[in-house]
């Protein structure tokens, strides 16, 4: 486990940054189980032990203790692996005949072959030496780049340093996290490695931890999300209170709370949270086949057949073949990437996972979705299938389900699926009343149905959809309904709206119409509604800007659980527990709730090393800055 902290080499002396950090010294106060770290390296507890005498991780992985850590040792291989395989492939293919001859026998005549040249002139030692030197340099560079590539996670930031000659240092603020994505490329899965990408708001502002050990990645994500959620205190509180054994009732609450926190975020391989949507293979294939691209292709085929008939020549058909190949590979990759699609709610956000060979699953914390679009291509209408896209503040380099941009949250689903996914993504939106409203937003033909629709005079510019083209206010959201042929419903959560704009050009003015836009971060969705009655638009502008201000002032989703924290009893626990006897620390792992119980054994190897008598000093110190952050 390369992830074992080695503070001596690379650690605290280099960072002088946050005032919080000195409070997280090598002697960590926390009582948690170093699950990933020692579990995956049971064979050599001594080695990391000597390197890190007293540094016991603060959370499940021990990676969020604010110290610098290294990545998975196979990282350079995985990153440069493809290049290596390519080089190997070129060499092998060039020597193919020679290999064949070695086993089968053959003419043995390769004029001008460099290998013959080397053999004949006695350059073998030189060449071998050169190859060896090359390999040594290569491995050295790999090793150095791995050594220099370190990351740390504090209560405020996640930070990565890398590079040998050109050093880069990248930090992402935890409260700006837009999602955490764990990708397991097929090749990396063989090594038990995973890539963790912390999506931070902004263009190309993501912090990538590639690669981590697969089991660590899930724990680490949970830890980062918990730190980001504003509940970093709670865990310490729970641990300490449990250690003190302060009251059975309190302990129960804590147990329940923490296990509730942890349970659904376990490694998806052995505890997948129940997906609220199941995409059957049939529906997946159907939806992929029935799209506009296939439609265009069919038109092309028909066109070329017509051309064949008229031109009396088979050549036009040949033109389709490359297109056909392209289409088939496109459809195939879309299908394999959408297989095993899951979407589930966890306490720290919505988790979307998919992929057959290369798997990917991403957790989107609450309040990171800036607008949602439910749309239906024309060919999907007979099946009542819908697609859901979202706008997000970050751009991820990894693709989403179906190999589309990762803004596609639900590649295909029926109306119940849509409601479930909407309910996950915008909590509080879907209830008995609003389901009807949303359904009307999806399929209603218009009329007096709670939406403010375009007036009749708009039919000149909205030929088919003017009856339906309208807006409504839902619980904490604005609904925009558009399109009679390509139906779509845009749901914009009010606290995420950046600004509201109202526009009117000369044509709309003639018709006494106007258009408005709810401006959010850039993405596939533009929440713009045209051809609205001018008076209604003015009223909307006023109402919407007021609603936006109100909702965003009461919104706390950037630290989504900080409010919860305020009314959870255990918060006070650490303060009263400061003077607890040090012996109590021995009981701490036992006091840990079920979520971590599985790692209890491995905890033993670590427990002897920590628990110095002074261990309780810091948690109070830790707690105080934490509380101030609220």
């Amino acid at each position, binding site marked *: 486990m390369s992830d074992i902290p080695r503070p001596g080499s690379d650690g605290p002396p280099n960072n002088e940054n946050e005032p919080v950090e000195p409070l997280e010294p090598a002697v960590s106060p926390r009582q948690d189980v170093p699950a990933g770290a020692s579990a995956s390296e049971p064979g050599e507890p001594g080695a990391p032990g000597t390197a890190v005498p007293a540094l016991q991780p603060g959370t499940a992985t021990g990676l969020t203790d604010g110290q610098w850590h290294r990545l998975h040792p196979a990282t350079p291989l995985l990153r440069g692996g493809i290049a290596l395989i390519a080089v190997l492939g070129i060499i092998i293919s060039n020597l193919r005949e020679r290999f064949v001859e070695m086993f089968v026998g053959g003419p043995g005549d390769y004029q001008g072959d460099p290998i013959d040249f080397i053999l004949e002139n006695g350059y073998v030692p030189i060449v071998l030496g050169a190859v060896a030197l090359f390999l040594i340099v290569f491995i050295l560079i790999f090793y150095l780049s791995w050594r220099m590539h370190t990351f740390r996670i504090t209560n405020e930031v996640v930070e990565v340093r890398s590079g040998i000659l050109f050093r880069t240092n990248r930090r992402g603020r935890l409260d700006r996290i837009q999602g955490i994505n764990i990708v397991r490329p097929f090749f990396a899965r063989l090594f038990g490695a995973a890539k963790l990408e912390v999506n931070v708001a902004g263009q190309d502002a993501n912090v990538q931890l590639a690669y981590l050990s697969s089991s660590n990645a899930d724990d680490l994500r949970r830890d980062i999300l918990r730190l980001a959620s504003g509940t970093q205190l709670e865990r310490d509180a729970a641990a300490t209170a449990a250690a003190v054994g302060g009251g059975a009732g309190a302990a129960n609450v804590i147990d329940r709370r923490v296990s509730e926190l942890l349970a659904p975020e376990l490694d998806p391989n052995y505890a997948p949270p129940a997906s609220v949507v199941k995409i059957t293979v049939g529906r997946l294939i159907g939806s992929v086949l029935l799209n506009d691209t296939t439609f265009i292709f069919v038109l092309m085929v028909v066109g070329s057949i017509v051309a064949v008939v008229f031109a009396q020549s088979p050549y036009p058909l040949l033109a389709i073949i490359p297109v056909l190949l392209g289409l088939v590979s496109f459809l195939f990759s879309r299908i394999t990437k959408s297989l095993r699609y899951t979407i589930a709610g966890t306490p720290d956000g919505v988790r979307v996972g998919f992929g057959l060979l290369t798997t990917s699953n991403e957790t989107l914390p609450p309040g990171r979705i800036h607008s949602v679009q439910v749309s239906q291509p024309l060919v999907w209408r007979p099946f009542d299938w819908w697609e859901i896209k979202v706008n997000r503040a970050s751009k991820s380099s990894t693709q989403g389900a179906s190999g589309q941009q990762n803004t596609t949250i639900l590649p295909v689903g029926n109306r119940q699926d849509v409601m479930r996914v909407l309910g996950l993504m915008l909590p509080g939106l879907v209830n008995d009343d609003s389901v009807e409203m949303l359904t009307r937003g999806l399929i209603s033909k218009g009329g007096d149905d709670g939406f403010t629709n375009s007036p009749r005079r708009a039919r000149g510019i909205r030929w088919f959809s003017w009856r339906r083209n309208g807006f409504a206010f839902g619980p904490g959201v604005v609904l925009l309904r558009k399109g009679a042929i390509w139906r779509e419903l845009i749901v914009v959560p009010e*606290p995420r709206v950046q600004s509201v704009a109202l526009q009117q050009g000369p044509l709309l*003015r003639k018709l006494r119409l106007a258009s408005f836009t709810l401006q959010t971060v850039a993405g596939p969705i533009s929440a713009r509604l045209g051809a609205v009655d001018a008076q209604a638009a003015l009223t909307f502008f006023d109402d919407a800007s007021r609603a936006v201000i109100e909702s965003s002032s009461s919104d706390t989703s950037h630290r989504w659980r900080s409010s919860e924290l305020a009314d959870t009893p255990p918060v006070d626990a650490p303060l009263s527990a400061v003077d607890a006897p040090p012996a109590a620390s021995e009981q701490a792992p036992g006091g840990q709730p079920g979520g971590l119980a599985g790692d209890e054994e491995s905890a033993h190897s670590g427990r002897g090393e920590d628990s110095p008598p002074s261990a309780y000093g810091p948690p109070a110190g830790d707690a105080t800055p934490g509380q101030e952050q609220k």
Partner: protein
Amino acid sequence: MTDRLELPETEWRRVSPKYVVVDIVGAIITGVILLVATSVPAVLSGISWLWAIPSVAGLITLVTVLFIPRRVRSIGYQLRDDDLLFRRGLMFQRFVSVPYGRMQLVDINRGPVARLLGLSELRFVTAAAATGVVIPGLAATDAEELRDRLVELAESRRAGL
């Protein structure tokens, strides 16, 4: 053109009338470049009807310049309790309301002509690129005061993204 959109109960703060000069100079420079560029084919080939292109360009520039004073008058902003209200445009009207808490940064830019006249341009940037609130033609001191005021308001109403 009587049904122009108008928000009720708003008193717009207008930008400095001197800003007209900045816009006119800009429009004339663009116009001259356009004229020269479009005249090249006519001069080189000597075909007389090709002169129609530069004349149209000239006409468009002239109309633009004539409308500039009104367009500048249409620019307005208002600091409401919780949001900044901004408007511009005559033919294509546009109103934007931005809550102060949405501010990511405030820019102050000064072009050469504006600097001669002591004017600045203030840009209010949010996380949405489309917001596009640019208040031109503010006296330099006003712009700085406004910036400080906006920053202060944004601080007091800070929100997540």
